[in-house]
């Protein structure tokens, strides 16, 4: 139990997010109205994604400094789960945009940032797929992962600041403070981030253990 408490915490936080996210108090903003609840899912999933991608980056750096197949495996699996969360974030955002902006997809700096992020990580997976030697694969993909992460930060962190975004709270400043979260929303928002991240880590954990079992079986 001592080792697994965080999994339970993850489940509890996600259930809390889902229940409280739908019945909790939210401020009434023009246009946004009740769709503001999507903040608990769409935005928090992407925060979780960034955390997982950063973990993947750390393992990639570790792999370069001190090469090991386990680090490479962890880097890959964290990136995969991060990509999964990104996809969920994309879908929730897209559905939300359909009802708020009237379209599933539009030319917005943040949307472009997401698309690029996802394409970069897809390229990362393709690169992994096209190298056979596991040690070489680890090193090449670690190098690409570091390069890609920096470019992703540039794209989603710096460029949107230079143009306007349609996103709520924006207009030249996509900073987190721009969301102007009310306290009734904060008590769901932050737990939701932790919850999605923990669930993501759990999924990753299972996949890593699964791969390790395969390695063990094959000697």
């Amino acid at each position, binding site marked *: 139990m001592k080792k697994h408490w965080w999994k339970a915490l993850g489940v509890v936080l996600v259930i809390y997010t889902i229940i409280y996210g739908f019945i909790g108090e939210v401020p009434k903003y023009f246009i946004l109205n009740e769709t503001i609840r999507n903040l608990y899912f769409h935005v928090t999933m992407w925060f979780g994604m960034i955390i997982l991608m950063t973990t993947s980056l750390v393992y990639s750096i570790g792999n370069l400094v001190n090469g090991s197949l386990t680090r490479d495996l962890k880097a890959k699996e964290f990136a995969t789960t991060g990509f999964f969360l990104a996809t969920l974030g994309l879908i929730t955002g897209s559905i939300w945009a359909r009802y708020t902006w009237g379209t599933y997809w539009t030319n917005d700096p943040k949307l472009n940032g997401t698309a690029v992020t996802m394409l970069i990580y897809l*390229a990362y997976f393709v690169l992994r797929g096209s*190298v056979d030697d596991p040690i070489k694969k680890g090193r*090449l993909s670690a*190098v690409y992962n570091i*390069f890609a992460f*920096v470019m992703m930060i540039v*794209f989603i962190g710096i460029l949107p600041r230079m143009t306007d975004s349609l996103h709520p709270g924006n207009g030249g400043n996509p900073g987190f403070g721009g969301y102007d979260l009310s306290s009734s929303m904060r008590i769901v928002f932050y737990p939701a981030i932790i919850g999605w991240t923990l669930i993501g880590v759990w999924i990753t954990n299972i996949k890593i253990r699964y791969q390790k079992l395969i390695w063990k079986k094959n000697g």
Partner: protein
Amino acid sequence: MKYICRVVKQVLSIIQLNITLEWRRRQSFLAVLLYTLTTTYLAYLVFNGVISTESWNALFWIIVLFASIQAAFRSFQNEADRRFLLYFGMVKPQVLILGKIIYNFLYIFLIGLSGLLLFVFLLGNLVDDMGAFILLLLIASAGFSAILTFVSGISAKASDNPALPAILSIPLLYPQVLTLSRTSMRALTGFSWEVNGPYLLVLLMLALVSTLLSYLLFAYLWRD
């Protein structure tokens, strides 16, 4: 100081070596030029002589980008195994990548200039501020070169998948191409240094960051 002198000297000799090798295989440079010519001519045919400034701008960067990918990708492909062992004995990998980036920068800038010439000739001169446009092309070549050289290093080490260089490099180039096309749109319609200063700075910063990353990571890439 002495160390820097030596590094500069080595970088210069790498560039010189690359130019010599390129001269020996002139047809490959001509091939990239031909690539630019055929695609530009295709654009000319498709647009049938009537082209808006926006399309001119978009097409120009896309064609230059793809020509650059062709150019930079070959820079490692032709000399994968043996010559690298030779390089390894003589220079540090950091020196090698710097030399290659600078060489490709010149190469891509040349391709870009030829592309510009072709565009002006075939699709009409829509550029309002030629000086600003060429400056943009210069900065763009630096940024393209840093990323493309590095990625071509990765794909030369990976496999013979011909789509790999494009898949790996284009998403990394989005930030640059996006900023570029926005800024160059203004060079086409009327350039103000005050408004576009920050964008030029962002482009320079992107080129610098990419070069720095290539410089730092290349050593790991070639450690076999």
